[in-house]
């Protein structure tokens, strides 16, 4: 293939870096909005790895899965934002740690 020829390793490195950033965000942020955003980052990190792999082995599957992930992410954001609205309504806050009433 022509064009930019970035080694797969580099892309995977970026992808795992993104994934780690997302996960870190998930772990340390309390605000639900930021958590959702971190989730988005993680999904995209995975998607990036798929696309890169697809490009490397010259297979369309990577892009197919990317489409799937995109759809899932959209659906997740729709549901997630709905939940965020409900949380805001009920608890008057977006802090996740205050919404732990189901603690066992």
């Amino acid at each position, binding site marked *: 293939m022509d064009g930019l020829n970035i080694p797969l390793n580099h892309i995977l490195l970026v992808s795992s870096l993104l994934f780690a950033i997302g996960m870190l965000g*998930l*772990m340390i942020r309390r605000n639900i909005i930021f958590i959702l955003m971190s989730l988005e980052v993680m999904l995209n990190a995975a998607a990036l790895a798929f696309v890169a792999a697809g490009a490397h082995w010259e297979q369309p599957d990577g892009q197919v899965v990317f489409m799937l992930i995109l759809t899932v992410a959209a659906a997740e954001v729709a549901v997630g934002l709905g939940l965020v609205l409900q949380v805001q309504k009920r608890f008057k806050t977006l802090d*996740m*740690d205050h919404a*732990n009433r189901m*603690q*066992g």
Partner: protein
Amino acid sequence: MSETIWVIPLIPLLSSVMLMLFGSRLKITHIGFLGVASVGISALLTLVLAVEFMQNQQIIQESLWTWMEVAGFAPGISFYFDGLTLVMMSVITGVGFLIHLFSTEFMEKDPSYARYFAYLNMFVAAMLVLVMADNLLLLYLGWEGVGVCSYLLVGFWYQHNANGQAARKAFIVTRIGDTAMALGLLLLFTELGTLDIQAMVGAANQTWQIGDSIPLIACLLIICGAVGKSAQLPLHTWLPDAMAGPTPVSALIHAATMVTAGVYLIARTHGLFLLAPTAMTVVAVIGIATSLMAAFTALMQTDIKRILAYSTISQIGYMFLALGVGAWSAGIFHLMTHAFFKALLFLGSGAIIHCLHHEHNIFKMGGLRTRMPVTFWSFMIGSAALAALPMTSGFFSKDQILLQAYQLPDLGPGLWMAGLLGALLTAIYSFRLVFVVFFGEANTEPDKDTGWRMAVPLSVLCFLAMIGGYFMIPVAEVFPASDGSHPAHWVEYVSISVPLVGLLVAYLVFFNRRLNIDGLANSTVGKSLGNFWLSGWGIDWLYDHLFVRPYYGLANLLKSEPVDGIYGLIVALNQTFNHWLSAAQSGRMRWYLASMVAGLIILITLAANLPTGVLQ
């Protein structure tokens, strides 16, 4: 009369039930009348029966109904009546009636008057069932019945803890023997297929030879039962403590009737014992050992009732000796005369205790001869009979036992000499009691003399204790005849003179004090020996340390439930883990995530560091 002998135990039983149900509503005179009259009627019926029996010598066997029937085991509520039964019934109802009469005055001031007579009547009924039973199971019913009544009456004044303790001791110690006896009955039934005494003895004679081991084991187990009930070594410790009960109870149960049940049992099953000569030797040795041990102990006691209790143990030892040497009728004869004179002595001591504000210590009495003449003469006659002075009832019976013991080959002379030593001690301790209590300085003033209800039984028993030796007990048909030979004359003379020597010793030491034993008693050896005897040869101490305390220790250990502790540990472990794990369920998403990530990292690190080839 001969068709309805079951009425005799039924009447006291009915009276007992009535007193239990309505006792609290009856007047005191009615209670006393009911209690005494029921036994009196039984005594009269027994008398009628005795007269009939003397005329026709007829053995009565009477079956009322089948008690239970399981796989060929069908003991009946059935009675058997022969000469031996007659002797026992006469003692139980006759002496029992006198003691009931005595009780009406002795217990007059007691608030539980009805309860007392209910128990006492129940005892008479149970004891009658014991001696009239045709099979060993019904006998065992009566056996346990008298045990229960003994327990109830020893602990009659249950408000004092010590009395309850004594009652429990009496019950538990005899229960040890009873358990062995139950095993003996089971063995006999499995081997012979019946518990009817006559059929069983017949079957035993056909099945076994003399000296076989199974009859020996059965006899030893029966001996255990008899030893427990009759307070012989090593199960005698309950009897001195049983004196915690009212004194008439001691007279009836713990001197005249119940404690001789063991003697009756062995005499009743003598056909079995004849098959096991070793068992008979065991009986004789137990008897003589107990007799000597108790006589030494009685020498040192200061409580009037404990002296009599140990003397009872000692005299029953003589009966066991008689049974062991095959002098069956002599043993039963001594049982009867002993019932007369020991009941007399106990009732006499009851009169003293009654009139001296419940004083038990003989050294605090003294000088009662002139102030309580009836009691004094009762004691004189009772002690003379107990010591076997010539012409009293005890003389005839004890003499027979000693002479027949002498004739036993091998062991005979040894047993005879030990028996003589016992007789000497008996004379010393019984007259020590008389001299200390009735002569010398007066230490306490009696506040009253005996009333007629006490005096009459005492006088009748005095009469019986004097002439009881001339009775001919009709047991010739029951037991195998002895060979009738007599030992040399000197043996007889020695047997007669030994109690007189004992009387002389007691006279010199305790009456005119010509013989001073203070020096001997205060020396180190004398003192320690005296204390040893006073404590009953330390047997109570021994049992206390050997059985009672370890048992308490074990009970204390088990009180904290160590086995439950193991399961408690499992529970505690579960709860701890539950604590830890439920703490992990904090509900904080970020914590969950962090721990997931941490776990994942650990897993991946582990997997990466595994040696190659493991994951394939």
